[in-house]
């Protein structure tokens, strides 16, 4: 299973609808400072069910809603992640699985699996069966490498313990 595409709307600097199409091998995302590269990583974690706004570099989930258009700001943020599921690693009989999360100001999160509304629990359990978990070591945010390099030997042992 791999990510085919990420759709963003109203997410931080992605005030206008945007899409990132990814390939199966090595994709590199680049661009000037402040252009929105790390925001894409945040949007992926948002869609995978990240609950801590601090992990998404915001004070609250509503902080994720794009503030660029001051005159007419969006009232919601929406991120969809489309997986290629040809190997059926996600237990859904479909070669394409799209999970999405939407959040309306003053409202709650709406999670969907292939356009069908689901609970966050259903979404995270589905993803877990393909070894996709929002807190895993497979997503390394900016500056995390420097922090990881400075951990104490006790912390390093605990990282290995968590793996066991």
């Amino acid at each position, binding site marked *: 299973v791999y990510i085919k595409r990420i759709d963003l709307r109203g997410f931080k600097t992605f005030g206008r609808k945007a899409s990132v199409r990814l390939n199966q091998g*090595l994709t590199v995302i*680049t661009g000037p400072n402040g252009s929105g590269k790390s925001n894409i*990583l945040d949007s992926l974690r948002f869609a995978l069910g990240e609950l801590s706004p601090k992990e998404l570099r915001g004070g609250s989930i509503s902080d994720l809603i794009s503030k660029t258009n001051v005159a007419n700001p969006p009232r919601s943020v929406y991120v969809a992640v489309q997986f290629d599921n040809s190997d059926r690693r996600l237990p859904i009989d479909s070669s394409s699985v799209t999970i999405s999360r939407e959040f309306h100001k003053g409202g709650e999160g709406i999670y969907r699996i292939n356009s069908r509304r689901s609970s966050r629990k259903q979404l995270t359990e589905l993803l877990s069966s393909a*070894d996709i978990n929002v807190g895993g070591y*497979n997503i390394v945010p900016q500056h*995390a490498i420097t922090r990881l390099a400075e951990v104490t030997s006790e912390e390093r042992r605990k990282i290995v*313990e968590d*793996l066991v």
Partner: protein
Amino acid sequence: KRETFMDVFERLNSNFNEIFSEITVGGKGRLVLENPENIFSGGLDMNLAFPGKTELSIRSASGGEKSVSTVCFLLALQGIHPMPFYVFDEIDAHLDMINSQRLADLLKERSKDSQFIVISLKDTTISKADGVFGIFIQGGFSQVISLPKPEVKSNVRN
């Protein structure tokens, strides 16, 4: 509990040395239990022998040496528990040109088994990609553009 830990630890250590020696071309890396008799009362240190240098603990390593070693540690962890995709945000920021090139080669190699999405500002990393996306601000909003491979270098600079 000790047995399960030691089992994972030995596989992790073997992964770590394999990856470290590949990326440094001849270096040797090993994870060291500070208290092998009583694992959980001691920590886990990381000893590194970079080519042409004596063995040192990661605590004494330079900024870039720490980066290289930590990336190897992460990839070693992933070998124990593979995941379908990996997303790395500027893990090459402190690497010199040679280390960046070797890291990009390593990620390219591993991307045959898992999907790798890498955010980077370095030409060396960009040039190894199967696909490149440029992000830029237009009218205050982030835009995404697919960048063709060989012209990437000059496109990114505009």
